[in-house]
């Protein structure tokens, strides 16, 4: 059975004007056109400024010769509350300990920043960055090369003028 429509008739003899409501609406529109406090940001031409303590996708710092700073100490996979860092350590030809495999699953990450805090050599950092769109889910497991390629600023984690948040 098709749905039936109940037709409400306008009461006879009552006249209605839409003019007043229309003018009211237009007034509001014009008011905002000239309002100096603009809220809308014209993304992507314009970008919002984000706080230096923002915690976004990670970045691995590198030495001048392009090697990752990470020494595969195993602290970040240990501290990570969401268990999203995979690390396999090894030794390179100069006898330096380095990560053979270092991966972060950015989807499981909760961006707590503890990996950055715990890292003894300031290698892994969370980043001041929010544009992470990808076409596929698996691209969100960032491997070592990807983490080293990222070039956005790294997070401060705490306010340098008030490091203990007192």
């Amino acid at each position, binding site marked *: 059975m098709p749905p039936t429509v109940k037709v409400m008739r306008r009461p006879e003899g009552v006249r209605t004007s839409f003019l007043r409501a229309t003018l009211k609406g237009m007034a509001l529109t014009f008011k905002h056109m000239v309002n100096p406090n603009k809220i809308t940001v014209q993304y992507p031409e314009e970008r919002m400024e984000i706080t230096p303590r923002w915690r976004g996708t990670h970045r691995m710092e590198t030495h001048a010769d392009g090697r990752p700073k990470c020494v595969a100490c195993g602290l970040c996979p*240990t501290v990570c509350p969401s268990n999203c860092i995979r690390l396999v350590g090894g030794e390179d030809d100069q006898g330096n300990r380095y990560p053979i495999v270092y991966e972060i699953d950015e989807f499981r990450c909760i961006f707590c920043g503890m990996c950055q805090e715990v890292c*003894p050599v300031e290698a892994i950092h969370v980043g001041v960055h929010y544009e992470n769109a990808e076409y596929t889910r698996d691209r969100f497991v960032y491997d070592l090369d990807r983490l080293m390629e990222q070039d956005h600023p790294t997070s401060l984690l705490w306010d340098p003028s008030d490091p203990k948040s007192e």
Partner: protein
Amino acid sequence: MSDQQTPNTVTFTLDGQEVTVPKGTTILRAAESIGIKIPHYCFHPGLSSPAMCRLCLVEVEGWPRMAPSCKETAQDGMVVFTNSELAQKQRTGVLEFYLVNHPLDCPICDQSGECDLQDYVFEEGREHGRGREPKRVLGRDDFGGDVLFNGDRCVMCTRCVRFMREVAEDERLCVVERGNRAVIDTFFEEGLEGSPYAGNIIDICPVGALISKDFLHKARAWDLDRTPSVCPSCSQGCNITLQVRDDLVQRLKPRENLEVNGWWMCDFGRHNYEWMNRTDRTEVPMVRGQEVGWADALGDLLQALKDAKESVKAVTWAHAPNEEMGLLSGLLAELGGGEVVYRSPRTEGEVPLPGFPLLARREDLAPNVNGAEIFGFRRVGDNNSQGGLDELAGHDGVLIVVGDPIEDYGEDFGSKAELYVYLGSYQSKTASNAHFVLPITTFAEQEGTYTNVQGRVQRFWPGVRSPASARPGWLILGALVAELTGTEAPVSADQAFAKIAEKTSEFGGITYRDLGPRGAVAGKPAGVSGD
């Protein structure tokens, strides 16, 4: 407490507690016996104490200076403080000296997480170093064998030197130079190469100065799951811990048992663990080539065993635990008797550890030769655990294989058998004719016991998860025996052991509870063990 005092004990006060210990006990050992840990480096229970690390100093009332608790024996009426302000200040001070040249490279040090320097400094060290001078840098030295030396991390406790001198009695290490420039070094070019017990110095080194090449960077200490076990590489049966990460055995470490191996184990046993991580495993029960569930497989097998007319022959290996062997022999008894043969690798000559005469790497390179002998199994095959099964290969009756993958025979092994049952952990071409292939767990994956060369029955525990639906051999054999005899099937390893102990006089009267973590000698009353 003082009323228990006999001429052979002394009573003294330790941190306000009254302690009675045998005469001649050092303060450090007395403190340990009541659970007070005094930090120390140079003292090791298996070595002499030179009292040279100065970390264990304690305050004794009325004494002009602090006493090294590792050397000083407790005296009647002594009043000792291990944690007084002075003692703490002393330790903080000594630790500061230890860090003068220490690189503090915990992030790349394999000892990190199980390092005494890390622990002590974390507990009582200074928060910030005050050193201004550059640190001495020595770098890394290959000591030969499995041992890598990081001179910068050394705390000069000389445990390694004393182990080689007093226990291995194969003096290859020494302290070179004096004072601030002192460093451990090898005498000869070959270093520790070829010394069969040298791996122990890695264990006793309290810091990361001596590390294992084999384990280098493999896992962090805190990532490892540790399970008490028994070394399966010879019939000595050293007590060990399996150290496992991601279900793979990463290394073996000795576990203290004064009746068997002290604190030590041999390098052969220590490094013979790769096979525990073998991946070519049997995973699901197969009956005549079809994958089936356990209930069906066991039901069919029981029927097939009942229907079988011909004589039974069985083969196992000396890696099978007592439970598996005992129940196999029980099964054969129910099937009208039959001979069980076993194979075990063997080598010529023992490798003794001179400073600890109980321990030697034995000639039989499998853990349970004694068990097999107790059950009356006949040994066949050569010293490489090969051959000797020709008679079984063509046997036309019932053929039961437990454990041994029989990799030295061809695909026609058991082709003539009326019924061929293969209970094994590994895939093998000799299993291709088997009517029943039942996957069993390895020793690392199950609970059980081995009987070592001294007749000591020792327990091991599961440290690794078994693949797919493998089951312990005793569970399968126990269920079959129970069905044939109309008794209750054992559902735990201790029940399985109780079952075999009923029938085997050598195990009479021992239960898992008596065995504890350090085992007991079969045939002797429980409680003779070392703890």
